[in-house]
Every structure is written in structure tokens, then in C-alpha cells.
């Protein structure tokens, strides 16, 4: 019983990882790769919500002023407290989908 459960759960994890890497949409990728800082109580939310005049509550998904190009540049170059994110962590195709999601169609 123990072994079969272990194998079952291992299979679940590996499948989830593969889907996230190869086919996930921008929203799912954003949640998985960026959500720890940019959703709920993350570091990015904490800092961005303190910006003067911020109406997004620090949430990037609530903003209408982000372009895909800006998102991609910030992710690779870092900004303020945000470290740079490598291609090892978020690949170029994944970043493209994330940027598209946050930019809501803007290039």
C-alpha cells in the first residue's frame, strides 16, 4: 500500500511539472512562477502597494499600464527590490506567455 501510494503521488507531481513547463497558459505560469511575490501577501505586493497613488493594491494583474516589453525587461533586469530572473528559472517562451497575460494584449 505504501509503495503504491508513493508511486501514484510521484506520478502526479511529475505530470504537473511537465504541464506547467510546456503548455501552461500565461495566467497559470504567472501564478506558479511569479505568484509567490506578486499575489496575495508576497514581497512585491507589499512594496508596490506602498507606491504613492497605487490603485492596484500592489497586484500586477490589476494594472492596465503594463506592456509585454516592459514585463520582459523588468523580469530579466530586475527592478528595485526584485532580483533578476534567469532563463533557467523562467524560460523565454514561458516569459513571453506571462508578459502577454499581464499586458492584456499590449505589445
Amino acid at each position, binding site marked *: *500500500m*505504501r509503495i503504491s*501510494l*508513493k508511486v501514484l*503521488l*510521484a506520478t*502526479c*507531481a*511529475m505530470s*504537473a*511539472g511537465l504541464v506547467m513547463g510546456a503548455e501552461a497558459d500565461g495566467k497559470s505560469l504567472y501564478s506558479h512562477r511569479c*505568484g*509567490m*511575490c506578486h499575489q496575495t*501577501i*508576497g*514581497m512585491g*505586493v*507589499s*512594496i508596490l502597494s*506602498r507606491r504613492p497613488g497605487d490603485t492596484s493594491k500592489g497586484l500586477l494583474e490589476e494594472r492596465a499600464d503594463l506592456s509585454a516589453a516592459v514585463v520582459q525587461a523588468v523580469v*530579466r*533586469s*530586475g527592478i*528595485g*527590490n*526584485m*532580483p*533578476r*530572473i*534567469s*532563463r*533557467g*528559472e523562467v*524560460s523565454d517562451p514561458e516569459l513571453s506567455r506571462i508578459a502577454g497575460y499581464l499586458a492584456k494584449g499590449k505589445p
Partner: protein
Amino acid sequence: MKQVLPPGMSAAQMDRALKAIARVVGDDWVLATDLDRDTYLDHFAVDEAAHAAAAAVAPLTAEQVVEVVKLANTHKLPLWPISRGKNFGYGGAAPRLKGSVVLDLSRMKKIEFDAANGVALVEPGVGFYDLYDYIQQNKLPYWTSVPGNSWGSVLGNALDRGVGYTTYGEHTAKLCGMEVVMPTGELLRTGMGAMKDSPTWNLYRYGFGPSWEQMFVQSNYGVVTKAGVWLMPAPEAMIGLDLEMENVDDLGWCVDIVAGMRRDGLLQQSPSIGSWLRGAAVLTSRKEWYDKPGALPDDVIAAIRKRFNIGWWSISLRLYGYASINEAAATLIQSQFARHTRQPMTITRWNQGTPLNPAPGQAAFAGVPITFPLANAAWHGGRGGHIGYSPVLPANGAAAMEQFRRTYDRYREFGMDYHGSFAMNERSITNVNQVLFNKDDKDMMGRVNGFFRALVKDASDKRYGEYRTHIDYMDLVASTYDFNNNSLRRANEAIKDALDPNGILAPGKSGIWPKRYRDQRA
């Protein structure tokens, strides 16, 4: 960042080595553009360029790691393994030796879960969020233990002796059974894992004969590609006992009574007594309160504390397990605190079967990953940065007060804002001090190095050593471990030379230099 190279290696040699590795990991996973090099810099460091990597390579499997390590030997290529590279305050993803190639294991994200025994067998790329999500999705009756920066790797954190908030918070102590690629490329398993297909690899630590697992912690003796991590069974109940303490001197008695609780086992987790800035730096920014250089005046500190209702010190104790035992322990703990303060403890209770929706500040105590404490680096504004200074003290109040006063004076002498905490271990204290800075403030940045070195010297004069340090200071801290003219370092390096004759694995990590690069010691 333009191309950088390790000592003694030409651009052509580097190119040949990376091309050979690309045949193992694939062209897409050799990351060697100028922008790639930037992304592996330590964003929070004083001098990012001092630890620039030549490139990064990102294998997907242990078999690929074996082949990469063998090729590194062939090409005499120094590798710097990272799990997820989120070791902020201690170097992030950046190598100790400039020009090393980062061996980025963040793609290795497999989890195997032994639900009967509460053990996760994880690869280095598995982050705390990944493991937490996995447990939630599979409705497993276990809690993770997470650090204040849960963005990082479960395995990487344990391998650098990171800590969490629950009774399973001493993460390195919860490792059981490792798979390691040795510096020559040989794959081994520790403990019971040395027996092929052993069902007790991740259940019994020691195996037969010498037990080597701590050899791969904070070292450069192997690349850990998999390890068992024990997890806390979901408790029947949890009680929180939080206290804000008004006076600076409250640290002394608080340390003494909590040290007793840790020794006799009344308290099973390691609470941390933190100064007011630990709370304030994630809630507000300095410029909202004061616009002059130098350490904050006392009246400004008082105003900030009043606004956010923060004590000069605060402590959060947690009891986990059976409700009846928790209640009895909580009564004993409260009575001990009541002998020293009239300030009541804020008590929270959670019982299994009711929703677990902790407030943000309480999440980590319930094993929910967090990153918001990293916001403290924005305290000064500008490009935030920080390094950690963390000496280990005996667990007694007089020693803690003396350490605090001396360190506090140093912060003021160098015009920095004190950000200290005292984590109560079973027989010791880890005194974690954050040095927060603004990288856009040249004057401040000019003071950081002298300040840090003064702190290390002060601690060393008291014979206190750091448990962990930034890559800038690994040689400095290693030099303070000076019994018998640094005999431990000589032993470490003798082992290094025996295991890693080409000196390819993480040269300089923890002050351990292979023969090939020993002249690089700072």
C-alpha cells in the same frame, strides 16, 4: 555583463567546455549571453560584479549532472551548484569564484512522497511553494516548515542550514538520505541508500559505518541531486502565544526563560526574539519617518513603534500537536512570562477541522510559504540590498544583552539602523542581524564593508562564530575558526583535494579552496 572567465582559463577553453556540456543538457540550457550572466548576479550584494558567473548550465536529471561534472573535470571548469539561487543575503545564485559556471538545478523539480511515513524525496529545484502546493493538491496530512523567504529550494535551504518556524524548523536536521554526485562524477547514496533499493533510505539516517550527510551541508564536496525531508504530521491543534515587549532590557529575561523551555522541551519550536525594525521594515519605509543620514533617533523609533503597535522586541511562540498537551504547555509558558511582565500574551488557537486561514504575519507558523519578509530590503528606498551577519551565542540572557548592546552601538557608529533577532535553539542562540542598505546611496555603501568586518571582529573577540555568511565574507569567517592555527580548515581542504583533485566544485565555498585555486583565498 561581458564575458568573464575563471583564473587560468581562456575564452576558447570556456567555449569548448560549454559546447561539450550543451551536448548533454541541450543548447537551450547553456545560458551564456551577457543578459544571462546578469541574471545570475547577486542582486542584493554590495559589489555584484565581484562574483559574476561565466555562464550557467541547467541539467534536468541526475544523470545529466553526472555527465556535466565529468566534463567539468575534463575541461578543468569550476562549477557553482545552486538549487534555486534564492539564498538572498548570502549570495543568491552568484558563485564565490568569479568566472565559475553556475550549475543551475532549478529545473530538477521531482517530488516523491511517502505518505505513510511523512517523507518527501525532493530534487533541488523543488521550492517551498511547490512542496506546499503538492501537499495541498494531494490532501496529505502533513505540514511543511518554511523559512522567511520561501521562494527558495527546500533542499537548498536545508543544505545551507536554513531554519523555519515550526517544530521541524531546523531543516538540516530533517534531512534523511541523500543522493550525491561526487566531484569526480560518481553517483552515491548516503545512509541506508547505500544498499540498493533499501526501503529505509529516507527513514534511518546513519546506515552502517560513518555517516556522511552533514559532509554535504555548507560544503563543496558533492552535488546533492535528491534528498529525503521529514515533514511534520498535521497537528490536532496549534496555539500561538505572541508578546510585544516594551523595553530594550526585556531581551535578557526573555532569553533566559525561553532557553529553559527549549532545554527541558516545554517548547519544541525555535522562536526568534526580534527587534522592532523586523516588523516595521516590511510595513513602512524609512523616508516616511526621517530624511537624514545616520541611525534613527529614539523619538522616531518610538513613533514608528506606536503607529504599528510593535514592541522594542517581539516574540512568537507556537505549540503544535495534541490539544490537551498544548493547553497544559501554554499554561506553563504563560505563567513563566507573567513573572517578568504584566503585558499579556496574545493567544490564538486553531484546531483541526476548522479552516486554517492564517493572517499574513501568522502564515509561516502554519507552514504556509511566505516572501513578504524580503520586503525589508526596501526599507531605505532605492535599490534595496542586504547581507546577513549571524553569530552563534550561548543561550543565556546576559550573553544576549551584551551581544545586543555591542552590536547596537556598532550599528549607530556606522550610521545604520539596527535589525537584529535572537533565534532560540535548543542550547544556543543564532543572532541574525540584517544589514539593510540602499545601493543607490554611495555614502552608505562605502560604509558597509567596514561595518561588517567590525561586526565579525567583535564577535570573534568574544569567540562567537557565524553559522552562515555571504560569499564576500566566507574566507573572513572561516579564518575566525582558528583553533590550532585553523586546523579544521586544513582538514577541510585535505578532504577537498582528495575528493575533488581538479578543484572543479564550488571553489571557495565556506572558505574551502581546492589546491588549484588556493591562491584565490581573500
